């Protein structure tokens, strides 16, 4: 039984491993056992997913970007068209 007990540090690391690579059977048992009992680690998992969503949205979306003035854009347009 003792071998199945892992720390919060290990449990939250496994949360990320689970998300990005998947867990082995023993890791999966350890993780489920720990997160069932530990509310702080459950909260971490939940917020980890929110951050994951935020990453997906802010990084892959093209709608949020730095503002550029028309004049700035135009000067680059001219530069490119000259080539």
């Amino acid at each position: 039984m003792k071998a199945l007990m892992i720390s919060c540090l290990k449990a939250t690391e496994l949360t990320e491993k689970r998300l990005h690579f998947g867990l082995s059977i023993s890791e999966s048992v350890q993780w489920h056992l720990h997160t069932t009992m530990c509310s702080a680690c459950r909260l971490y998992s939940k917020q980890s997913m929110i951050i994951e969503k935020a990453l997906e949205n802010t990084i892959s979306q093209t709608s949020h970007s730095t503002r550029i003035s028309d004049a700035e854009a135009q000067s680059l347009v001219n530069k490119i068209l000259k080539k």
Partner: protein
Amino acid sequence: MNDKLLQSWVKEYTKDLLSWALHKVSDRATAEDLVQDTFLVAAEKLLLFRNDSSPKTWLFSILNNKIAEQYRSKSKFTKVTISSGGTLNDFFDEEGNWKKNIVASEWESVEPNLFDNHAFIESFQKCLDNLPVEWNRCIILKYLEQKEATLICQEVGISPTNYWQIVHRAKLQLRECLEKNWFNKHRE
């Protein structure tokens, strides 16, 4: 005809492409170079362009490849290590338990449209910028190209174990940063 088409794209999409590139690389000259490269590639590959995707989507996919290349070439010079950021001691005690002062609380104000909220995106972006550069690059590369973590590991030259440990530490920091700079301020 093709030249004219390309020219019209340059006129129409340069601004969007530039602002996106600048947002990603935050260096003016590099961003401009990336946009110019994008049109060079577009000129070469114009025959491959199919009308079933919009020119804008197509140009952005070229630009994103260019940005990813940029990140990749940078990460070859700086080795990605876990130790480049803050320490785990900030969050866990010697036995690996949460420190008492890390009192995380529920994020109640997560509305479905939170990720479209510009103020939130700005805060989140600032938190991302605060991460150690190498971590930031690893993470951005993954979402920029929407690739599997395994592939990113190969590209950046780190082991999967290193990758999830980096993500873990990065998320601990992001979580703390968001807590302080967003959720705490938006609690009733």
